[in-house]
């Protein structure tokens, strides 16, 4: 299940990602031509973050598995739509994954279960901290999140990991809408610089 190469799923630095990223881009281009071995390789490299981020947003394991399967199948089906000139393969796949998780959350907003999520999200930073293991990715992201102001950090984690809209984030943090938009953007700019994203 886990990739043979321990480095395979690492998002270590911008340069390393560019190197590994190009490799992954090539694989995804091969997937678009119906190469099943390339698809297996893409699966092994990205299933961890795909499932992980969906699980973070949806929480429910069986729904998360269902959405993750849909996303990975969508990657297979629509690989021809991937354009390496616009962005890397990992970003393309994980943008789809997060978007599908959010679609599921938004379509089920009226359903039960959302309430207990709201109750739990008051400690988003602790959740991040909990999830931090020895992994370099986690360390780096945590270090960069730690460097943000509290409101920046909480608004980014509530939005991305918690699946909340910026209006919900504003309500949860008792900050105005305008301020939340700015905090999210400023926080992401600082994250971008801290992570060395070009």
């Amino acid at each position: 299940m886990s990739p043979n190469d321990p480095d395979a799923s690492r998002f270590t630095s911008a340069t390393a990602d560019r190197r590994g990223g190009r490799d992954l881009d090539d694989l995804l281009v091969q997937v678009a031509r119906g190469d099943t071995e390339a698809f297996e390789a893409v699966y092994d490299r990205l299933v961890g973050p795909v499932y992980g981020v969906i699980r973070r947003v949806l929480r429910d394991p069986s729904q998360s598995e269902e959405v993750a399967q849909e996303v990975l199948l969508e990657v297979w089906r629509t690989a021809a739509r991937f354009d390496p000139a616009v962005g890397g393969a990992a970003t393309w796949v994980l943008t789809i994954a997060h978007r599908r998780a959010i679609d599921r959350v938004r379509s089920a907003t009226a359903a039960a279960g959302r309430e207990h999520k709201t109750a739990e999200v008051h400690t988003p930073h602790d959740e991040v901290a909990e999830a931090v293991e020895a992994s370099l990715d986690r360390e780096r992201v945590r270090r960069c999140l730690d460097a943000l102001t509290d409101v920046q950090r909480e608004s980014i984690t509530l939005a991305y990991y918690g699946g909340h809209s910026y209006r919900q984030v504003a309500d949860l943090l008792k900050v105005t809408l305008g301020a939340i938009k700015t905090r999210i953007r400023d926080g992401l700019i600082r994250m971008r610089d801290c992570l060395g994203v070009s």
Partner: protein
Amino acid sequence: MRLFRHDLHSLSGAYALDALETEAEHDRFTRHLSRCPSCAGEVRGFREVATAMAFAAATEAPPGMRDQVLAAAARTRQLPPEVAGESRARQKRSRAWMPWVPWLSGAVAVASIAVAVFFGFAQAHTQDELDQIRAQNQAISLLLSSPQVTLLSKSTTEGGVATVVLAAARHQLVVVTNGLPALPAGHVYQLWLIGKTTTTSAGLLPAATDGRTPPVLATGVVKGDTLGLTVEPAPGSAQPTTTPILALPLPV
């Protein structure tokens, strides 16, 4: 509400994290990006941050998922690359094909799909089933609302009629049937996309209610495909094992 340009810019972060409030707001910002290269660049950078956050949240997926995804991929047709100019030719062909089906049968088909969708809800027992039906219905209603759909219908050689709503641009179709003969136990009706070189399963027809089967959504329809229907031993076959009782060329 009118937004000042400055306000629109400040949404780039929320947009990159999928945190805008509504589809409409999301679409409006997407349109804005096509006119604002610096915003598009900013969003690209933010999405890389989001990717790093996804990697930081990496979790081992449930065992068995890999086999399921690879098996599903093996029976899922891929979308062909978009070729410029192709869609115009396709639209022209679709329009030429339209008069082939009387308008009324189209309206009836759409109505029967709507009824069948509703029926699916009534028959769902668990939250999972309900979610699945909801997702499928969302896909079907998207298809039905696409600007260019073609309605086709044809009798099978064994009686009964299959009606197809084809959205060529989306590479998707929805099939409903009416009046197909009931099958002996242990047999199922299976749909196929029969291409020039390969034949792919497009799913099983669900059990009929009052002679009608609930809609089945098939994806990955490509140029040259024919929709086929065969009787197969349950739970369906990897490739057709009997002569199709219906072969409907698809004007994609």
